[in-house]
């Protein structure tokens, strides 16, 4: 049910591209695939208008087209793509992200802004439209952005709907497998399907190539090949291919947003310094991550050495290790020592993700078992001295160990020992946990802490009835019932009836509560999208209430000098409208964050 997403998208288009564009897209969303004549018929707009309006829509890939060679006629059918249109919401954040990473003088933000406007641009056209000096700056900026994969090249097939592309590949493959008595028809089809899926996935990943859109520099730009390879691995002596068509890569931007969310979570759960370390780990991984889901098959690893090199020298790693004050030490030191033994034996058996085998082993190695009887403070001090004197690498490993020690929220996992330690991130597990945490937060705000407690219990236990729930949660059953029904209404929980007898009398059935995460998240996302629709509709409404002032603001002379060209009353109106805009658009950004977590991450 992407009803709200469609509403949002039409609203955005109406505001930015105009009424006609919105109507056309609305028609396409309502009726599905249409030819030009059908669009004209259903939307009651003249053909010429529609043709005119389809141009920017196709340029931005909001509307995809397909020309079927075998259909006889030359007619193209058009299909609206809500996913591409939804990315309009993220355009502001994209620009601010680029502004953060690249200074304004480098020309990178301008490129991004222009691409947002035009949808896609051929590199040669863009450079030709600028003066010579600007063009040089732009060239290097584009190269950089291409290397970082924030820009991507477009191939012809990306203007076509994916289902049609797949069908074409499938048909070709099917035809390539000869009919024979030995092979049944269904077997042919399955084989064709598997081959087609492979080919299709290769097609989808055509931009993952490091040198996508780049060619070797003729001379000049990257002449010193002795320079160290850049992060991406492609040598700096590349420049853009002038015939390439450039467009923004929203998948890569989603990867960056995900990294930001994860960093924020680490800062909350562990600490700021560890969050900075984690940020660097993610940065080291980032060149190999092309999209959030369905990445390469091989796991991506990062070594501690890499992270160490990329860390700012100013980040103080060691001062995050705390020692218990001597007041507290003696009490638990002996129990600690015996626990240490237990843990070592215990973790020897466990698979992979134990923390004791990590780089901070030099701390625990010294605290060997035969020491624990005597001088408790003594051996702690030795271990601590060792830490203080050890290298920055050990300090780094301390932080990495902190990140990996939590089994329920594994930010990072150790997979090897080369280069000081090899680490990987299991994004699937991590994303699932992040979604759980985020959903819990939303439920807590919406329904209260008790409801969240119940949700967590139900999630843990699977299916559970009210009485058990009350017993585990230590809450009276009548309080719980209202919370459970409220959660049921939101779609967070579901009921399973288990009848005790052949009749379905309510007194003779068990009612078990359970939680289906995917379903719940989907409902939540729909609610969020609905909220976004309302936010944006409100913004438009506020603007619509002051048509004269808004029209005046669009004037060139007014834009340059608002202070003098507007009357005080008008200025006040403008201030009010801007305030409303700011508030709601900022809301939409936060809501988009939620959509990213639950849908795109």
């Amino acid at each position, binding site marked *: 049910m992407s009803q709200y997403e469609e509403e949002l998208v039409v609203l955005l288009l109406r505001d930015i591209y105009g009424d006609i564009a919105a109507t056309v897209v609305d028609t396409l969303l309502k009726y599905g695939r249409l030819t030009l004549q059908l669009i004209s018929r259903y939307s009651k707009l003249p053909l010429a208008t529609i043709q005119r309006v389809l141009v920017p829509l196709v340029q931005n890939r909001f509307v995809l087209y397909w020309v079927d060679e075998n259909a006889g006629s030359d007619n193209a059918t058009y299909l609206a793509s809500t996913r591409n249109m939804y990315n309009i919401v993220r355009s502001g954040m994209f620009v601010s992200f680029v502004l953060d990473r690249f200074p304004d003088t480098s020309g990178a933000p301008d490129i991004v802004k222009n691409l947002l406007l035009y949808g896609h641009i051929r590199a040669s056209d863009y450079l030709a439209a600028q003066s010579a000096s600007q063009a040089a700056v732009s060239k290097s900026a584009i190269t950089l952005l291409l290397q970082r994969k924030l820009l991507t090249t477009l191939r012809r097939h990306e203007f076509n709907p994916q289902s049609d592309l797949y069908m074409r590949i499938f048909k070709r493959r099917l035809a390539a497998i000869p009919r024979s008595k030995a092979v049944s028809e269904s077997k042919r089809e399955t084989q064709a399907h598997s081959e087609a899926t492979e080919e299709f996935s290769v097609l989808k990943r055509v931009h993952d190539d490091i040198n996508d859109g780049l060619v070797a520099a003729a001379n000049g730009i990257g002449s010193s090949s002795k320079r160290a390879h850049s992060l991406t691995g492609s040598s700096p002596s590349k420049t853009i291919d002038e015939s390439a068509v450039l467009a923004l890569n929203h998948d890569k931007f989603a990867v960056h947003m995900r990294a930001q969310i994860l960093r924020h979570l680490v800062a909350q759960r562990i600490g700021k310094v560890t969050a900075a370390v984690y940020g660097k780990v993610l940065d080291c991984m980032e060149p190999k991550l092309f999209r959030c889901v369905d990445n390469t098959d091989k796991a991506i690893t990062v070594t501690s050495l890499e992270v160490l090199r990329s860390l700012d020298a100013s980040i103080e790693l060691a001062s995050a290790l705390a020692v218990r004050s001597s007041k507290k030490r003696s009490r638990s030191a002996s129990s600690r020592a015996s626990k240490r033994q237990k843990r070592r034996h215990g973790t020897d058996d466990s698979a992979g993700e134990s*923390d004791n085998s990590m780089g901070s082993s030099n701390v625990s190695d010294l605290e060997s078992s035969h020491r624990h009887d005597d001088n408790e403070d003594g051996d702690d001090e030795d271990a601590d001295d060792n830490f203080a004197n050890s290298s920055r690498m050990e300090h780094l490993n301390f932080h990495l160990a902190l990140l990996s020690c939590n089994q329920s929220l594994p930010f990072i996992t150790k997979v090897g020992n080369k280069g000081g330690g090899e680490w990987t991130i299991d994004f699937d597990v991590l994303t699932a946990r992040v979604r759980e945490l985020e959903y819990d937060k939303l439920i807590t705000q919406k329904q209260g802490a008790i409801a969240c407690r119940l949700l967590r219990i139900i999630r843990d236990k699977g299916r559970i009835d009210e009485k058990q729930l009350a017993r585990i949660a230590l809450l009276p059953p009548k309080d719980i019932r209202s919370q459970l029904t409220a959660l049921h209404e939101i779609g967070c929980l579901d009921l399973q009836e288990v009848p005790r007898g052949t009749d379905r009398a309510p007194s003779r059935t068990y009612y078990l509560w359970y939680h289906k995460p995917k379903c719940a998240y989907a409902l939540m996302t729909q609610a969020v999208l609905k909220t976004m629709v309302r936010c944006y509709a409100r913004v438009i409404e506020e603007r619509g209430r002051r048509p004269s002032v808004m029209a005046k603001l669009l004037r060139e002379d007014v834009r340059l000098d608002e202070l003098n060209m507007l009357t005080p009353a008008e200025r006040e109106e403008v201030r009010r409208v801007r305030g409303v805009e700011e508030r709601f658009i900022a809301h939409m950004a936060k809501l988009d964050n939620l959509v990213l977590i639950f849908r795109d991450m």
Partner: protein
Amino acid sequence: MPSVKAPKAGSSARAASQPYTMPLSPPASSASSSGSMHLLENLSQPAQTMYNKMMNSVPEGHIYTQTELTELVGISDPLRLMGLIQENMNMGLVKMLQQGDDLCYQAIKKEDAEKIQAMTKDEAMVYSYIESSGTEGIWTKTIKAKTNLHQSVVQRCLKSLESKRYIKNIKSVKYPTRKIYMLASLQPSIDVTGGPWFTDSELDTEFISSLLSIVFRYVMSESIPTEDDKALVPPPRSKKTNRKFTKNEKKEEIVYDQLSYPANYSAYPSQTQIHEFVQTSGITTVELAQSDIKALLDVLIYDGKIETIDHGMTYRAILGATADDRTSAEASEYDSIWSYGPFL
């Protein structure tokens, strides 16, 4: 074993319908023996001797097998022995029980025997069932089923027994609508009253929440470095370091960006430690078992406030996870998103 003479009709019902493990004997009642001699006088001399010996020589409630009784009174003739036992049983001074396959006997206090003799047959039957249920108590429906008496008859008996204060009505925690009866002198078992969380058969939510916050604060104090702890390697003196200077500038307070225990830190509190802490803190007079503490810790985990390390060996508080920690500004920010939400 010699054949047992068929007991007299009056006491048959009671004797035959007691297949069980022993109930607790009723606590010592006051020694008012005004009516009790009355019963004893009806017995023959040897029967009286046997009874007295049964009552006096060994601890109360002792169950005698036939061989033991033979030894006690010194009469080896089984027929005569049976006669004496029968006499006592007729007076209600001795009760016959079944332990496995054997029959055995228990002496009943004179006061109790008086009580039972004074009741009607139905009442006595109902009373015996209630007595046999011990501290668990028994449901009216069960009494009705076992005695096969009519509902109104059972009700009448219960009413009269209650008025005589022999039995009392208690509320069960598991089944709040059921009427459970037990002997007036006994204390209901833990099962029925629900354990430490229940006061007057109701869940004591304030008590629970206060316990939860105490346990949480303790776990937090043990898992997060506090002001007393300091960094092993102090941050370098540079312009960027956050250092707070107090008014007289003699003492420097260092504000850390982050202070954490290492990943292999093992002094997080365990369940036993926490239990000890709660016991010694004297927060409550109620006895809390380890399982109660575990229940509390589970609730805290489900609240998202603590987490387990080592699969439940130790517990650690989660940083920044509780909604209470959020400042009011942030909280209102989130609220306002929902004010435009669709759930209205």
